[in-house]
């Protein structure tokens, strides 16, 4: 099943890099999101020494890790945003006829390489912060950072998939579900401790934004965990990712079964 994906991926790489000037502008434009995110964190922290138990430096680490995760999820799964268009135009039927899983085909239908600009910019930022943050590195810490980025990407990918699954019911509601995906991303860049009770529950256990970077960074920097949670909570990101994926795949299957086409 990997080989068709590699063929498609190679095709996308060649197509998107054919016009180099245009590709360079797209990559730079995608880095614009990194720059504005950093500026945003800077002005939020400009008037206070720390917010929700995190200094600006630690918050930038939370932002950078989440940013890298989101860019990876967006690179591979961002194209699921186009599902409502396929459903409305009937082009979705073509996906059903091909002998590959539909989700897999949709993922392979586009690979927005420009997102790699954000992956690189976010990684540079994360490395710069990690280099200067002064913790005694153990192999476990390195593993935690790698695990966080991968599982964070998996969480965002699950959110993309779940949001796409809902489109089978609400063809016109793409922006409503997208606001949970992008709102979840936005929520993930701030310390979850600033959110009032219901919002914190929403962004920890329903849309697991707090697991993307905030909780792992607390564990990494040996900061006290939120009340009621153990100090090793940062290692539970895979559980959050698995939970998010279980729900996303169940929803996707149900949506796919429900799809009946638009006729003619």
């Amino acid at each position, binding site marked *: 099943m990997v080989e068709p994906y590699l063929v498609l991926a190679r095709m996308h790489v060649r197509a998107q890099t054919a016009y180099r000037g245009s590709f360079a502008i797209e990559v730079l434009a995608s880095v614009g999101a990194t720059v504005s995110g950093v500026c945003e964190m800077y002005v939020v922290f400009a*008037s206070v020494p720390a917010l929700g138990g995190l200094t600006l430096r630690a918050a930038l680490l939370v932002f950078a890790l989440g940013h890298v995760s989101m860019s990876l999820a967006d690179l591979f799964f961002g194209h699921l945003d186009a599902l409502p268009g396929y459903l409305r135009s009937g082009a979705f039927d073509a996906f059903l006829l091909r002998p590959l899983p539909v989700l897999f085909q949709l993922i392979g239908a586009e690979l927005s390489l420009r997102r790699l600009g954000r992956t690189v910019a976010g990684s540079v930022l994360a490395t710069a912060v990690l280099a200067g943050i002064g913790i005694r590195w153990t192999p476990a810490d390195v593993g935690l950072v790698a695990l966080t980025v991968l599982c964070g990407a998996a969480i965002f990918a699950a959110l993309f998939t779940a949001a796409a699954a809902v489109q089978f019911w609400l063809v016109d509601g793409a922006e*409503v579900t*997208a606001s949970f995906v992008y709102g979840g991303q936005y929520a993930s860049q*701030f310390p979850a401790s600033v959110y009032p009770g219901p919002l914190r529950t929403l962004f920890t256990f329903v849309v697991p934004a707090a697991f993307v970077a905030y909780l792992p960074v607390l564990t990494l920097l040996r900061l006290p965990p939120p009340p009621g949670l153990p100090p090793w909570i940062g290692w539970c990101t895979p559980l959050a990712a698995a939970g998010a994926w279980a729900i996303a795949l169940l929803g996707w299957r149900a949506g796919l079964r429900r799809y009946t086409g638009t006729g003619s």
Partner: protein
Amino acid sequence: MWPTLFALGFRRWSAYRTAALAGAFTNCVFGLIRSAVLIAVVGTAGGALAGYDRATAATYVWLGQALIGPVQLFGWNELAQRVRTGDIAIDLARPADPMLTYLAADLGRATFALLPRGLPPLVVGALVTGLALPHTPAPYALGLASVALATALSFACRWLVNLSAFWLLDLRGPMTLYLVVSGVLCGLVVPVHWFPGWLAAIAAATPFPSMMQAPTDVLMGRSGAQTLVVQALWLAGLLGLGRAGFALGTRRLVIQGG
């Protein structure tokens, strides 16, 4: 003619009511996050920061979220598209100033957007954090004028960014730069009053605070008529620039085909 163009702008956008409500939903979700963050900042700073307490900071966020749609803070590329496709030739053949034509239609769009994009964030804000709004009519009357000026100003900025299409054809570069700079400096994230001195000085030298901070300040009764004067001066200057830039661009323009 101008009222007709205004009405057409209103009618064109009123066809997309669901899209407007969906946009308002996004603004509400982000408003929940932003208000929590700003309330936390004020709390950390000891309950008051540059004249904002928890309630006014939350109100600031909700007013900002309500204004995103009407003021149209985020992109617009209609002019650039028309330059790219050559449709701009039709605009040039019309017996009316193209910039003012688009401005009238944009004000119509903003007027439609006021209710479906503006009301939901305010209702959610009133329910979740409460709103600290003035109890006299004057700030609202001035505020409405300030929102109109902010919309026209946002249009003038978007028009100037779009003009780069005459030279570059591709708008993505300039538009991204514009969105990054304006997004922070207009005060959408935190009030401009919270900026460190050097950044506040930079912001004050740009029209961006007049697009978001200014109408919010007027609506909350923090400032009055003098803010509107600043907005009007920026607007006059940028519209002048926009007209000159458009004249310059059309001299370079070559429409292909027949």
